[in-house]
């Protein structure tokens, strides 16, 4: 085989990465800028981080984002997992129909979901704010959980559930002690998806909130109207948090596997 030139593919990859990450890096660098300028770096300072921590409005938005994401993740994971398990036991026609319906909110443009929810909440005279935002987040997160849990449920061997009941486990104990451990990878994947979908949502949140309840995306959107490097500081923190979460999500299972394999090798010796 002819030896291919290696230069171009590497250059291509480097360009791609630059395109993806330079904007983020620039933003992170400028979050440490001592002046208000977004074009000239005039010296290192933590000024904008101090401002950020002192700004109760921003800190409020952070707590809204985090608590909504956490609650929406928990609720949609429970709902989605139970639905996926239920679906696997449903008659085929109904099951396929429901799975298709489940894909609708995923395919639907956010703006349509957002306007639909806004009209719904208005027409039902809901007091818009934290609760409506949480409900909406649960709504658009659950389909993602169902989609990632359902394949795992289908792989689940029913005889394991039978075995558990045979050994004296009630249906609920069987769910907790046997079914959930078996479909755990699907549940984790669903949780991760739900958390990120909720945490960085802007469109839906913007339309269904009210009474001054804002999450990070909304407050950042409002702040962009005036130059305010505090956004850079906030965004940097968010990126670091996500990076740490990703690292934990990827590295911990790897370490666990390594440990398990190591133990097995030890036993073989």
């Amino acid at each position, binding site marked *: 085989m002819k030896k291919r030139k290696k230069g171009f593919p590497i250059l291509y990859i480097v360009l791609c990465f630059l395109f993806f990450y330079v904007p983020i890096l620039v933003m992170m660098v400028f979050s440490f800028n001592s002046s208000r300028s977004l074009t000239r770096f005039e010296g290192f300072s933590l000024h904008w981080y101090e401002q950020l921590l002192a700004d109760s409005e921003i800190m409020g938005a952070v707590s809204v984002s985090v608590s909504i994401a956490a609650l929406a993740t928990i609720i949609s994971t429970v709902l989605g997992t139970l639905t996926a398990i239920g679906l696997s036991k449903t008659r085929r026609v109904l099951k396929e129909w429901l799975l298709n319906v489940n894909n609708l909110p995923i395919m639907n443009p956010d703006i349509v979901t957002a306007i639909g929810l806004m009209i719904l909440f208005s027409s039902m005279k809901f007091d818009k704010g934290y609760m409506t935002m949480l409900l909406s987040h649960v709504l658009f997160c659950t389909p993602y959980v169902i989609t990632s849990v359902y394949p795992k449920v289908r792989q689940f*061997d029913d*005889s*394991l559930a039978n*075995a558990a009941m*045979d*050994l*004296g*486990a009630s249906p609920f104990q069987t769910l907790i002690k046997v079914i959930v*451990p078996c479909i755990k990878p699907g549940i984790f994947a669903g949780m991760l998806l739900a958390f990120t979908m909720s945490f960085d949502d802007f469109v839906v949140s913007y339309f269904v909130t009210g009474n001054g309840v804002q999450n990070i995306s909304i407050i950042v959107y409002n702040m962009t109207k005036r130059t305010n490097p505090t956004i850079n500081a906030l965004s940097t923190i968010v990126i670091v948090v996500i990076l740490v979460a990703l690292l934990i999500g990827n590295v911990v299972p790897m370490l666990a596997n390594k440990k398990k394999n190591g133990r097995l090798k030890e*036993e073989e010796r």
Partner: protein
Amino acid sequence: MADMGDCIIELRGITKNFDDQQVLRGIDLNIYENQFLTLLGPSGCGKTTILRIIAGFEEPSKGELLFNGIDIAKVPPYKREINTVFQKYALFPFLNVYDNVAFGLNIKKVDKSVIHQKVQKMLSLVGLDGFEKRDVTLLSGGQQQRVAIARALVNEPKVLLLDEPLSALDAKLRKEMQGELKKIQQEVGITFIFVTHDQEEALSMSDTVVVMNDGKIQQIGTPVDIYNEPENRFVADFIGESNIIEGNMIRDCLVKFDGYEFECVDKGFKENEEIEVVLRPEDIEIVAPEQANLVGEIISSVFKGVHYELIVKTAQREYKIHTTDIHEVGKKVGMVLDKEDIHVMYKMDY
């Protein structure tokens, strides 16, 4: 044979329909304490359905399921004093050997030290000492099998159900496990209900064999009875190899087939009743043609390892014979039968 105590499980007129298909057509069966009972039949005969009804995974459409005299047909599986060894073991892949075996006791919130003691005892009973921390998904088929047995027995059930537990093992290991299962059953002294389609397995392990076909019980008896005195053509055909010949019962102890009368030991048939006779291939003795009524020509001889399988063609039919002697193809031979070797059965309605 183990001595059997009282009747522990009683099936009375059990039927089971799946949609509009009837898979069990009225099963009556008594199962005793300390009995090794095998449900034997071809796939689709309903044997596994009976097991699932006893375990509680299926509810009978009609009939009663008595456990120590109490109807438990509607009691959920987790409230029955019955445990199951599943066909593909159904071990929990996320638990190690110890935790798999301890599962039932943990559910019952038994004291940790008691659990430890019982699990250890069970693991040594099935020969898995030192395997506590092993990952069950990395065990061999035979080892997984043992874990499944230990996991069921550690709960000290009154009855252990085994759903074709040996079918996934290779021939040699299967033989080994047959002996071991029998030994375990005698050691723990409880009722085993074993499902299989392998007649040799059934005959070599059981106290009682229940032969099933098409949702009905064909015969219940000891392995020797089932083999030597099959009640009908299906049982004779399914258990071992056989020559099945239509004939008439002249009177008690005298049967006529292929134009000749033979002495036999069967009684209680009507005079001249149409019957079927079972001749096991190993019971037919080959002699010189002048010494016998039944005469034929050897048309094939196949070496089977321990014996030769001969096909002898007579005027009426072909007989299958197993013999350890060598006979040439084409030779004319006579065949004689001991009266104990002629097994008369009722003719089956088709």
